[in-house]
């Protein structure tokens, strides 16, 4: 059973990374948005594997369903640009590519060495707790301990709404 889960996770992980790379390398912006959708779904599946199915739902509905629509609209409104990730691109961005590769290796090295082999007993503990109603615990925490933060999140969305409405509306339409 364990190896099956692991294999599945690895598969989904690899697909997610490939999709993420796809968003950056595909020809058209519209396709990039489609790849992003797949990446987000992949990340959502990761959440499932990590024992938090509620966030998977949120990820798919809000992110893939909501934010992605925004992207599609903005792609439609701002026109298309052809993009090619070819040798020319590599030559132009040699420094950036180097930086990214270095970043990946230093980051992964640090992450694995510092957080790897992480408290396996603790791991067991929580994943078992999940079976006893994780979503319930989560909502209790959200609405008791963190209930004073929710209004602030509301403020954030409010200001984002204000700003985007102001910026997007044509003034003549007012």
């Amino acid at each position, binding site marked *: 059973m364990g190896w099956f889960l692991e294999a599945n996770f690895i598969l989904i992980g690899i697909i997610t990374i490939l999709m993420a790379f796809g968003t950056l390398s595909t020809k058209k912006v519209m396709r990039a948005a489609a790849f992003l959708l797949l990446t987000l779904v992949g990340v959502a599946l990761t959440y499932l594997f990590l024992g938090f199915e509620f966030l998977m739902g949120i990820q798919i509905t809000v992110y893939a369903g909501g934010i992605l629509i925004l992207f599609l609209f903005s792609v439609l409104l701002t026109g298309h640009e052809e993009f090619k990730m070819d040798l020319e691109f590599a030559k132009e961005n040699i420094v950036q590519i180097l*930086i990214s590769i270095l970043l990946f290796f230093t980051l992964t090295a640090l992450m694995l060495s510092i957080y790897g082999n992480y408290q396996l007993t603790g791991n067991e503990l929580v994943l078992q707790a999940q079976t006893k109603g994780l979503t319930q615990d989560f909502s209790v925490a959200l609405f008791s301990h963190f209930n004073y933060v929710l209004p602030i999140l509301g403020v954030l969305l409010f200001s984002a709404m204000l700003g985007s409405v102001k910026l997007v509306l044509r003034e003549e339409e007012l």
Partner: protein
Amino acid sequence: MESEIIYYALGVVTSPFIGSLILTIFAFIHYAKTHGHEETEENNHEEHEEHGLKYTPLENFVSTIGILSIFASWVFMLLLAIKFFTTEHHGAFLTTSYDFFGFPVTQNIQVGLLVDALSVYMGLIVTTLALLIHMYAREYMHGDKGYPRFFATFNFFTGIMLSLVFSSSFFELFIFWELVGLSSYLLIGFWIFKPSAAHAAKKAFLYNKVGDVALLSGFLILYKLTGTLNFMELPDKIHNLTPLQTALISVLIFGGVIGKSAQFPLYTWLADAMEGPTPVSAILHSSTMVKAGVYMVARVFFLYWQAHEGEYNFAGDNWALAVVAWVAAITALLAGLQALVENEIKRILAYSTVSQISYMVLALGAGSKTAAMYHLLSHATFKALLFLTAGAVIHVVHTNNIWEMGNLRKKIPKTFTAMLIGAIGLSGFPGISGFWSKDAVLATVYYSDVPGNKILFTLGVVTAFITALYTTRFIIVVFFREPTPENIERVEHAHDGGFFLTIPPLIMAALVILESLTFIPTPIFKFEEWLMEWLEPGVHAHEVALTLPILSAIVVLLGIGTGIYLYYYNYNILASLNQNKVIIPIREFIAQRYYIDKVLYWIANVPAMIVSRLLQDIDIKIIDRTIIDTWIVKGSLGLAKISDVFDQGIIDGIVNGVWMIALTLGRAFRKLQTGIVSNYASIFAAALVIFLGYVNFLIFIK
């Protein structure tokens, strides 16, 4: 009671600054209004009496603010003095001082006001003379385009000097000491369009700086050794010092005095400083800048006294006071001789100042604070008076050279009267203020135990003779001698100045007479003893043998007589003396200021010369012959030239180089600004990689 005194002292110190602040703002606005072209050569101030004495509203406002703020300071000073001297505070220190910005680490460096007999006495002199000189300047500077600037700077200067007087710690005193130098720089170079004025200001500043280096090192050593700079705490702390340390500190501090109070060999700047407006000379010479050195030595006199304890022994350590006294005596003589050959009236007075200050320093060196401060008072009054009247004379005859004047006593009677009184004071005429104070100095020297005190005394007496001689000389040449034919017209049109040009000198003349009356020792009241009681409680004056004042009086009278004989009755002798083969080189030697400037320049330039020679040697191998030739030609043009080359080539080169590096770096940093977001983001990412690398380094490698 004490708080009252402190508030008065605060009033004394702050009033000039407030006036200066107002005037500075005003000067800025004025400066902006006149389109930044404040003054040019054509707008020189000396053209004004043709238009009569009509003050512009601007001038009225400015001078009123300036004079009022000084007047306020003076009133506070009077109140303070009355309060202080009428309450019994023998030797008591009344201070307010709070920790430096309230932070415990620097608690030993304090800022505050120190009100004791010495500062009150000095403050009284400064405010009184500053007030009179300010009034004088109201008319003297009339018509000058820089009127607001002048008063702003002048008030600032007065305020700085008063702050110096009331400083409570060496740290504070040094700050104001430097500020005195700075503001005197501004005042001496007031007519910036005159190259000579700019040069003189620069020279004064540089010469002062040389001394300041010594002073700074002196008081830093003091701080290092005692851990405090507070004047109140120092006297107790210095007992722990070894005699050698005390002597070293004393001499280093005296280095500052050599610069500021114009002692040998750094005294030549004072004569050049005459390029400033006359009120500036008057205030610099009477009570402020050059007296700051005397004041400082008096302030830290316990230090010198500590060094003085015990037997004098040149092989040992106790030579600090001897250095002071000997430097002073030599300066007195040299400067007196210099005054004898000078032809410009203000320069005569300048050298006379040097000579007289040396008397004060001599008194300090001989171990008497009282005699020094005594002479300071009398000298301040008559020297201010002499400068103001000299300014008035120059003002009416449009020349500085005494030989182009003559027979002015009838044309400008008020000025003449005032100047004559001042001159009598300076010459030390028996019974007049200068006589008593000089006598006190000479007596101190005579009875002191400084090595060679008899020689010092003789030098003092000789200087007294010379003083009388040159005083008589310029009075007779300016006021009694018939003018030469080409100058008759110039003298014909002379007439007394207006109200503010004549009244302050007359008040000063009255002060001189008043002082003379006060100074006469009577069985009931002896000024010197009274002063000593306040300044040096517990010290008693020597019983002075009657022969000393009599000797002094005879010498002075002899000097005056010689002067009258030489310059009035028998001018021919002088003329033939001037032709004498022996006299001419001596005269020339003195007139060239004993080549002090040349020697100093040479000393300053030897390192520069060596470096430029080295550079030259390097150049020979690299650069072609012609350039080397020019270098050699330049080198042979004289040391000064080389120093110029050094200045411009190396110093300017370094300055420009630093500036260019900064600018180039600035431009390079600007190159980062490509304007493209991706590049900016790349910088972020690169920085992130570097940080992660740093963490890797810390965790895995270290």
